[in-house]
């Protein structure tokens, strides 16, 4: 069975600080990986995704993530966060024949101005 782990449940940063949110998954085969974001009062939306090819993927709003197959990881990064990045971030994966998306428990990010 596939699973996703997000080890940082709450992260508090000041504006301009660098961000890295951890995501590890458990599945032995080919995976598709996603980061979703939920801003306060809004619905979940896609930040970026990895299917194949270049393991460094870039998403919206300056976010990027790196797929490291040997570490079963797909960490999310941003070099300089803004107050508007305050949100809940979810890592997700789909794999296997059914490609049913499985989500991690999420990381709450608070950015102080």
């Amino acid at each position, binding site marked *: 069975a596939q699973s996703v782990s997000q080890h940082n449940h709450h992260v508090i940063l000041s504006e301009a600080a660098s961000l890295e949110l951890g995501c590890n998954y458990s599945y032995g085969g080919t995976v598709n990986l996603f980061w*979703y974001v939920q801003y306060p009062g809004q*619905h*979940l939306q896609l930040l970026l995704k990895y299917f194949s090819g270049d393991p460094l993927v870039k998403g919206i709003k300056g976010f990027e993530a790196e797929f490291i197959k040997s570490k079963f990881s797909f960490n999310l990064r941003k070099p300089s966060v803004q107050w508007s990045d305050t949100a809940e971030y979810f890592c997700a994966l*789909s794999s296997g024949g059914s*490609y*049913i998306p499985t*989500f991690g*428990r*999420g990381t709450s990010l608070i950015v102080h101005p």
Partner: protein
Amino acid sequence: EAGVAQSPRYKIIEKRQSVAFWCNPISGHATLYWYQQILGQGPKLLIQFQNNGVVDDSQLPKDRFSAERLKGVDSTLKIQPAKLEDSAVYLCASSPYGGLEKLFFGSGTQLSVL
């Protein structure tokens, strides 16, 4: 384009009562998902439809939860009878190509069971 529509936005019921949620996916999206998101946790899949057929309902508590997607468009999720632990946000999502592509989420229905 119009997004995924869900109603109601909020619902408060007492335990052992029944409740139903409605979802209208983005036009043309074949795949529809219902997720349950308990406070402090990530979304957990309850059921996935492909058109009007069920792809996966392995995590749906079938003794109390039921879902249908008539004509492959709108969907309803029902809980009967509700328990305290059913308090959660129920999210509907749709996708044109299933899990191979991104999901489009609705705003969710926040259920409180008292």
